[in-house]
């Protein structure tokens, strides 16, 4: 190599390098774990504090030196929380709204996604693009008019008002359509040749293949009902139809004066519990759905 004047890399004291490398590696590993575990503890702390507080007597809770596990475990806080916030009725309301709206929403979503993925009709692409464009608009913009609409329809303080306006999610249609598109068209053609009807094909082939997406949608929809706050407060804030989040917030702001925090924390824990159970058993689907959605509920 005439024109290239280069020297190979310098040789170092290999033993010293090896020792240094082992130390650095160990320190980095320790640092990473320390950081992650500290962050994890910070993330977990509110949950721990919720449980801890919910099991204390009011007097113990007020002690100026906090206790990290209750001296006297007050399971009874949960009973009074249940009673104070009328959680039973709230649970029932939320489950009714959640289940009905999920089922109806799934049916509508599947039908539309199928039409967009497999059927041919004039204006399909334009319609789909138009739908996608509405996803950019913040929901509040719709709410203003919808509030008036449901009032005029006389839907206020009914289950209907909690279910119908949110039945169609453009995002879910989009998600499912993408999933349907991945299923080879040949399957559809083969089914047509065999004389299978569209609906039967949808039911027997498409839905089983898109099941994970459908499960994700179901969970997100249920979580949405569980966490919805603004709309229910606006249009169905009567005791008969009140949903869980709203009821929880109301139960502890309506009481003036002395707030019984342990009971409040017990109520919060009770409200959080179902979500945790769903999470524990269906973590995979939730994470799958969430990573694609970017929205809560």
């Amino acid at each position: 190599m005439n024109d290239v004047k280069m020297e190979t890399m310098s040789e170092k004291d290999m033993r010293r390098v090896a020792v240094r490398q082992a130390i650095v590696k160990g320190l980095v590993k320790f640092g990473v774990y320390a950081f992650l575990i500290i962050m994890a503890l910070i993330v977990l702390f509110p949950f721990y504090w919720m449980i801890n507080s919910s099991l204390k007597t009011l007097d113990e809770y007020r002690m100026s030196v906090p206790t990290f596990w209750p001296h006297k475990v007050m399971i009874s806080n949960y009973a009074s929380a249940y009673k104070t916030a009328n959680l039973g009725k709230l649970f029932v309301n939320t489950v009714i709204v959640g289940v009905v709206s999920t089922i109806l929403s799934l049916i509508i979503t599947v039908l539309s996604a199928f039409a967009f993925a497999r059927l041919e009709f004039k204006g399909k692409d334009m319609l789909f693009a138009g739908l996608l464009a509405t996803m950019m608009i913040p929901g509040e913009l719709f709410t203003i008019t919808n509030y008036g609409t449901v009032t005029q329809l006389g839907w206020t303080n009914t289950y209907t008002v909690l279910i119908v306006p949110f039945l169609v999610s453009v995002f879910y249609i989009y998600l499912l359509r993408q999933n349907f598109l991945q299923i080879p068209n040949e399957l559809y053609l083969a089914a047509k040749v065999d004389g299978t009807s569209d609906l039967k094909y949808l039911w027997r082939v498409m839905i089983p293949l898109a099941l994970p997406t459908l499960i994700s949608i179901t969970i997100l929809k249920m979580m949405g009902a569980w966490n919805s706050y603004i709309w229910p407060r606006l249009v169905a804030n009567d005791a008969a139809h009140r949903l869980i989040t709203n009821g929880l917030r109301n139960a502890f702001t309506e009481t003036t004066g002395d707030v019984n925090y342990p009971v409040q924390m017990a109520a919060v824990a009770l409200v959080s519990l179902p979500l945790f159970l769903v999470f524990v058993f269906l973590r995979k689907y939730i994470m799958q759905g969430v990573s694609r959605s970017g929205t809560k509920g």
Partner: protein
Amino acid sequence: MVNSKHQWKAWIYLAPAIAVLLVFTVWPIFNTVRMAFLENYSGLEATNGATFSFGVGNFVKVLKYKRFISCLKNTMILCVLTVPISTILALLIAVGLNSIKPLQKILQTIFFLPYVTNSIAIGMVFAAMFNIVGAFYGTENELIVTAGIINNVIEFFGGTPVNWINYGSQYSANIAVMTVYIVWNALPFKILVLLGGLQSINKQYYDAARVDGSSRRRIFARITVPLLSPMLAYVVITGFIGGFKEYTSIVGIFGENMGPADDAGRLNTMVGFIYDSLSTNSQGRASAAALILFGIILVVTLLNLYVSKKKVHY
């Protein structure tokens, strides 16, 4: 694609979705714009037969409104604080998670937990944690009602307790609490997306960089961040959109007061302003505010996209 002779069939499949969308999505778009441009439009008066003239008065009024400016300021401050903090923290946690083997699954699950919570419910827990030791309403002869763990910890380390959220608290303290809570709430989604992105980066790039003798910091800055830039852009954009729509987390901590007991509405946000206007039947004002919110989100999104187009690699 099958060329169906029966086009009407497709429309039957779409009918339920279109019906709902027409009433609750398409019509509101037009109607909200209409209401925004009708001077002082009020739903209540409209049903009583009142008519309104066309004009931009709603927008002018909203922008002159002190409370709206305060809401806008709160929203901006929270956005500017929480989006960078949560993105950087999420990036560090995701990179950390991606580099370990033992405990990875369990830590990943823990970091996702805040996602499956009710932001009102856990807001109440945070409120309890940030409570003060002392009087709640500031009135004389009042019971000493609560003890918040955060102030206990501050005292334990010899600091003076801070009035975070109660009667007489400082604005900056309020914002600090909101920032902590919103970041805590925003982490799971960001970690999930970024970790997913990290795991899809070809491991060979890291092998190559290691063989080339890159330090960890250089690998992070020169390989990880650029290759993750599409995911980072996504997380930042959704973070800003979410930030501009902040509302329930504040209700969770401060209640519908949207502020400490002595200064209700101090922490109100743009969305809160829209609902307040709605509840006083000032649909015109609410619509104008909603359109302004939409405009801001649009501008920020486009700005983000423009910046990331320049910065996002490949």
